């Protein structure tokens, strides 16, 4: 469809690079699985207790795993000079940023979403929670990637921008975390969870409409330190 376009070109290159290196996919995934596995070890294996905290644990570790990968979203391209080539391509920069964000979600967010049900099983999440958890994580991790792109763009030229990046991005992740985890809680308690997922969807739409433009503007400032 857009394989020959600049959008498709960036998407394909980023996916190919992630596939070649492997660590881009495996690092966040292992972090997600390892930290979640630590919880039963620390709190004890009581199923009723784990079920209570499972939604929160999964959402928090998914957030942190995504945060871990944000720093490199533009920084690798900045270090080897290809970011300049992207900025100098005669296309709207927000579209190319969107390609990078999509690639980031496919590499980090999607695997986390797909592996989450396994970890939920380990944390004894009641059956009713699975569907809202997977839907919520799919939307939520996409929000993490989009909002994170703005922070990654602002800190692209900073040597140690990791902490600053977390400080910029974390407050913007709060609504996603609140709505995402509460959708699972409500489903487990037998309440209607659609309104909460709808709010998450609204946040996603808002991020989709603003984040690529904000990140593109931030990149133009960010490259000059």
């Amino acid at each position, binding site marked *: 469809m857009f394989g*020959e*376009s*600049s959008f*498709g*070109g*960036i998407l*394909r*290159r980023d996916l*190919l*690079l992630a596939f*070649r*290196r492997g660590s881009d996919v495996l690092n966040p995934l292992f972090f997600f699985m390892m930290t979640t596995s630590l919880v039963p070890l620390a709190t004890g294996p009581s199923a009723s207790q784990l079920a209570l905290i499972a939604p929160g644990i999964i959402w928090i570790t998914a957030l942190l795993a995504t945060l871990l990968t944000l720093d490199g979203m533009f920084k690798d391209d900045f*270090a*080897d*000079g*290809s970011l*300049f*080539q*992207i*900025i*100098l*391509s*005669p*296309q709207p920069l927000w579209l190319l940023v969107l390609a990078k964000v999509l690639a980031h979600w496919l590499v980090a967010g999607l695997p986390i979403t797909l592996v989450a049900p396994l970890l939920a099983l380990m944390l004894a999440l009641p059956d009713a929670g699975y569907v809202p958890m997977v839907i919520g994580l799919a939307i939520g991790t996409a929000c993490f990637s989009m909002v994170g792109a703005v922070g990654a763009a602002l800190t692209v030229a900073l040597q140690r921008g990791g902490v600053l990046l977390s400080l910029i991005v974390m407050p913007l992740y709060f609504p996603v975390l609140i709505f995402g985890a509460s959708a699972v809680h409500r489903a487990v308690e037998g309440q209607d969870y659609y309104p909460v997922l709808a709010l998450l969807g609204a946040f996603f739409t808002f991020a989709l409409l603003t984040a690529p433009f904000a990140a593109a503007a931030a990149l133009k400032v960010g*490259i*000059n330190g």
Partner: protein
Amino acid sequence: MASAPLLEIQAIAFERDDRTLFSDVSVCLAAGEIMQVSGPNGCGKTTLLHILATLKPPAHGQMLWRGDDIRADRFGYLADIAFIGHQPGLKLALSARENLIWCARLHGLPVSGKIDMALDRAGLSHCKDVPCSTLSAGQLRRVALAVLHLREALLWLLDEPLTALDHEGISELEAMFRSHLGEGGIIVFSSHQALSLAGVRNLPLTEYAASLN
């Protein structure tokens, strides 16, 4: 010879941390002209090239391309220029061919036999499909320069293009420059080395440096 200038640089100045790096740089370049930006380290050669490539805004002054302000039609200008910076913009995990395919897609060019042609002309016919991480610094520079064969841009902005090239590479680059100028192209490059090319205009940036106080 007296053709209308394609690129007009009008009184460009750049400030960093309230210090003026250079000011009042004014140059006109017509088709077939080549200019070397020279000066000691830190005098702003890279900055000037970044300004010409629209990566940085100048503090003062403006640039005209074909008589119009660059900012009026930035995409039109970008389609006409090829910028190669200090870092050549290559992914080491990808092969030379994959890097060029990406570059072609980025600029909306068809991915066709031109990729092979560009790599052949850059003298890389024997290492098109090995990862760039196995290539030497000089070979990487050649991959970056192969982009110039691919793009067919009018204005080349090259930051230190001679870095890491061997004697053969430099004379090949000079031949590339000659044919590009012959086709009516314009080249602006920064370097400490002098090229054995006739008619290279010199822009010594130190002469535009503001006096420190």
